[in-house]
């Protein structure tokens, strides 16, 4: 059974989406399915029929450009393994809540692990 993550990375060459753990723990593989942040390592491809999948490449080329620049300028990225997942999750949060509180931001990002940096300061940015 093919996972959405494999189809994105290997089938379509969209390597922006990362595989961290492959078992739903780290959030690195997060993509938007019909606008909802979803772990693509846990999604079998057949569940995606007729649904809209957005990856970090998609939002980076579109409306999230400025958001990404700010993300980089404030040091929200170090090794980058977690970054696509964090970007997708944070972007989805901002779509449904343009001015989240610190607590709301922490809650939204609680499923995205980061081993390097950024994660401490993220809600400030």
């Amino acid at each position, binding site marked *: 059974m093919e996972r959405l993550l494999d189809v994105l990375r290997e089938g379509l060459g969209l390597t922006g989406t990362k595989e961290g753990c492959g078992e739903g723990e780290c959030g690195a593989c997060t993509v938007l399915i019909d606008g909802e942040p979803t772990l693509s390592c846990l999604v079998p491809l057949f569940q995606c029929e007729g649904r809209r999948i957005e990856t970090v490449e998609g939002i980076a080329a579109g409306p999230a450009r400025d958001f990404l620049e700010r993300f980089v*300028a404030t040091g929200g990225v170090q090794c980058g393994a977690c970054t696509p997942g964090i970007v997708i999750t944070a972007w989805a949060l901002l779509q449904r809540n343009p001015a989240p509180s610190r607590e709301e931001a922490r809650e939204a990002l609680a499923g995205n692990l980061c081993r390097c940096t950024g994660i401490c300061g993220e809600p400030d940015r």
Partner: protein
Amino acid sequence: MKSPVTARLRADGRIEVLTAMTDMGQGCAAVFPQIARAAGGLGEDDVVFAEPDTGDVPDSGPTVASRTTMIVGNLIARTVAELRDSILDPIVGEGLSVSDGWIVGPAGPVEPFRDAARRHFETAGPLEITHRHEPPEWQTFDESTYQGAAYPTYAWGADVVEVEVDPDTLAARPVAATAVCEVGRAIHPTLCKGQIEGGTLQALGWALLEEVKLQDGRYLNDRLATYIIPTIKDSPRIDVHLLERAWKGGPFGAKGVGELPMDGGAPATAQAVENATGIPVEEIPATPEKLLLASSSPVGAALCGRAGWGGGANGKNAASEKTGRPHRAAPTENEVLP
């Protein structure tokens, strides 16, 4: 480690720098170009970095011991500056220098450096300079006894950690952390602070959560579902203060910083837990189970089915040197509560 770095002149007048460093979080993709441009007086677009493909680049050493910026960065500065001088030397003129990508004389800007570099390539052909790391003479290290000075300098840090401990469960939570680091010079302050923030969070995880469990030589918790690291919700406010005292052996005064924040955070957390609970913390992570075992609580003894801290079968029941409180020896794997 006599690791080399190479700079070569390209036909288009750009300087290409070759190192083996792959950026996996050291920040070298940002910091190296900064160093190369500043050392050469070059413009934004005058320097390119080769992909660190081992078939093309020299072996400029591994990413270890926080050496990337300090050692390799320093070699880049030297190599690029020397390559620039070799290009500048044949140009006739008094007191020429290079600044922001322009050759500048006493009367002001003369021409873009890249134009002169391109001409140099056309007339004199390819040009390449390699430098190797040479430890200063006074720095000697004996590889057989592992004695001596492994490094010419160190960065320094101090950490303050504040914790809250639930008196019922003994679960400790970091509330705030402050890291003060003397880094020589921060080449990229945002990345430098980010490394210290992230390293401090990792140190807090080490102090309170992260425990590598082994049984018969195998990991019991070899995945993120069982090896628990801090999430954003476990992360307290972390204040980072950089102290900059340029060190003359590093590029523009920089020292290595990557590992520094792992040194002080966990001991500071252990002290804070000890201070809050009165329970001696002599092993990390200071999980509730370990704290309960190390405490004088009869509950700990009962829960663990042991005779309590005073009656340990192995006789390791001496008082803690530091606190004067009697305590059990640190529990072994099997003694930890499920």
